[in-house]
């Protein structure tokens, strides 16, 4: 509807795969290629007094999350969940993902990012890397991935990480906000997602297993050690650089903001599996949906939320990151993110039939 020359044209074009969106996508992709595969940014970083291009990148990333986040907070200022969640995202990016690692470095400690965990950050369970760190970091790495991740996911769903803590999700939900609706909602893309994401998860598990074997038995088996090193750099190139960076962020204006999180992130895959069996769910109010489809449109993970809402089915999808935007945009207040099904009226009625007073909140 919005045509060249009318108000909001630029905004519309940029948000809807117009020419400006392609242009921006080209710029973002080029930036990531330059960042990962050249040293061109190093002199620039040093010129402004930073030690490396990676520090410059971290600074830019933090600025993008902060500015985008402030804009998102303003946009959704009437929604406490969005305000709290986005504030936490900005805070974590500014501390755990930026200033604390550099402070550690300044104190001659390892540059450690507490907001990243294996298998998103493969290094943190790579024995040759992690065992070289001081003990507290080793303990945090292992306990973080083995206990913190699954327990929190079982209690609160994967959102505790994907839309509250993680930097990738953080950027998507702040700087990436204008493009969240571009995710593909078709059932075909859901099928593809299930294949790709579990392939990456399987690959990351295999790689970690091989890194441990190679660390233990590599000396007596140089063939294995060489293969594992090759595998590791292949994974680093394809998954960490290409999929997470170049594709993941470069294609924001064309494919939506969660391409990496939805199709490739091994951490999201793992959290999603736990989420399926945990307490988190989206509760659907009975018979109130008008099938308008705003929920599906604004789901960054490409979930066809409407198909559940119009059927009156409360649901938990492995891919749901709990950003809460479906509930925000719903004009009839049909959806609610919950950590427990306590408020389902039918269940409540069951409880009452069994003689428990409904006046007591059902936990």
């Amino acid at each position, binding site marked *: *509807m919005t045509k060249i020359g009318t108000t909001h044209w630029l905004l519309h074009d940029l948000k809807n795969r117009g020419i400006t969106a392609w242009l921006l996508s080209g710029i973002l992709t080029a930036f990531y290629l330059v960042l990962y595969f050249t040293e061109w940014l190093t002199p620039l970083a040093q010129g402004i007094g930073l030690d490396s291009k990676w520090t410059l990148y971290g600074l830019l990333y933090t600025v993008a999350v902060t500015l985008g986040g402030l804009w998102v907070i303003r946009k959704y200022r009437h929604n406490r969940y969005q305000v709290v969640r986005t504030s936490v995202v900005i805070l974590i990016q500014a501390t755990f993902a930026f200033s604390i690692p550099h402070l550690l470095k300044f104190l001659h400690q390892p540059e450690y990012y507490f907001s990243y965990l294996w298998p998103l950050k493969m290094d943190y369970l790579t024995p040759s890397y992690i065992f070289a760190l001081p003990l507290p970091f080793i303990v945090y790495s292992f306990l973080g991935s083995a206990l913190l991740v699954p327990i929190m996911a079982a209690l609160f769903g994967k959102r505790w990480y994907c839309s509250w803590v993680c930097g990738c999700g953080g950027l998507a939900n702040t700087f990436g906000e204008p493009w969240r609706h571009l995710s593909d909602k078709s059932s075909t893309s859901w099928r593809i997602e299930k294949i790709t994401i579990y392939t990456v998860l399987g690959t990351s598990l295999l790689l970690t297993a091989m890194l441990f074997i190679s660390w233990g038995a590599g000396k007596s088996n140089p063939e294995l050690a060489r293969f594992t090193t090759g595998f590791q750099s292949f994974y680093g190139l394809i998954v960490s650089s290409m999929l997470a960076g170049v594709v993941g962020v470069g294609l924001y204006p064309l494919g939506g903001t969660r391409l990496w999180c939805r199709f490739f992130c091994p951490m999201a895959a793992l959290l999603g599996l736990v989420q399926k069996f945990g307490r988190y769910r989206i509760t659907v109010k009975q018979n109130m949906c008008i099938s308008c489809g705003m929920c599906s449109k604004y789901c960054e993970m490409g979930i066809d939320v409407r198909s559940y809402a119009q059927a009156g089915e409360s649901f938990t999808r492995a891919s749901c990151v709990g950003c809460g935007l479906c509930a925000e945009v719903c004009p009839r207040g049909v959806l609610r993110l919950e950590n427990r099904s306590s408020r389902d009226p039918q269940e409540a009625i069951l409880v009452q039939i069994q003689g428990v007073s409904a006046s007591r*909140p059902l936990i």
Partner: protein
Amino acid sequence: MHYVIIGNGVAGITAAFTLRERDRHARITVISGESDYFISRTALMYAYMDRMNLRDLEPFERKAYDKQKIDRVRGWVRDLNADQRQIRLEDGRKIIYDRLLLAVGSAPNRFQWPGLNAAKDGVVHFVSLQHLAECEGLTPSTKRAVVVGGGLIGVELVECLVHHGVEVDFLVRESWYWPMALAKEEGELIANHIRRHGVKLHIEHEVNAVRADASGRVVSVSTNKGLDLPCQMLGICIGVRPAVDWLKPVTTPPEINRGIKVNQSFQTTLPDVFSAGDCAEFVRPDGSPLVEQIWYAAKRQGELAARAMLGDAVDYKPSLFYNSAKFFDIEYTTVGDVTRLPDDATSFLHRLPGDAVSIRVIERNGSVIGFNMLGSRWDHTWFERWIHERRSMEDVMQQLHLAQFDVEFGRVRLDGVRAAFAEYLKTGSRRAA
């Protein structure tokens, strides 16, 4: 067996899917003149506001129709011959049915104001895809618009126009906004909210005459209070009526009053012809006609009409009224009786300070009969249950938190409401609603 459904709105499509669920082999054909695929009419405003694409309005994936073997036919039906079990489309195509469902929905009301007929361009309604296209075509050349009609579609059109930077004069005939659904206090709360969005809301104003320029484009609207409002678009949103005009001249018309007359099993006066949704007219137990023009009723009727067509003994009774909406930013949930109340009904109203949040609970003879809530989210199923169980207002107020459906961290605090309610009980200030 060939089931033919005229109309691919929510009633028609729900009927088609329900038929398929029960009968794997029958032929099912859905005919529509409006669109190739079922669209959500309620989302037209989001398409107009560029928040969605047209394709996003389709609630089902297109391949679902092939998968469910539901044939879609595009075209307007012009004739119905129940003796030959045949319908004829505008282009001459004939379709033979075994059972036919008329789910043809509503058409917008129009009032013959002086000058309206001369205005060939710039006068719009807002209930179909075709209307959306017209509105979109007119918007770039519109600086000011007048919208008539203080209901839901009116405020939706106003919101769309405001989004596109159009200055809007919004004419409401009644003494406050939407007295059909809102009491005076809430009507004023919403009116203030609408005004805060820059809309010029004129209460108790009616159109006197419409003026158009030489080319036929509307240029101004004058009101009964002497206002002369320049505009390039006139939106008429004064309600809808069953879209039954086309049925009157057909070979064998069914009996029509306001809508197509049906019994409690959705049967029209013609054999094997059923009707459901906005266009169907039932008879209430007291003999008065009942036409339900609301999404939820259409969906439920579509499902039940399909079951009647399959031969189930269906006895339709309208459910307790409920609805929800959003006026710009204010959400609204209503259940039961809240307006046009009997004299012995009393109501407790509390407005939260600062926010545009209000809570109204209505009781009669010691039991709650209605809820009207603005500005926060509620699970209406609790309200329905409390009304069905004829709970006392005291009991309901104590359990009100159970029905809250606000977002996490955003739950509206009910302490103030409870304190106000205690006061209301103590001072015996139960007043007529």
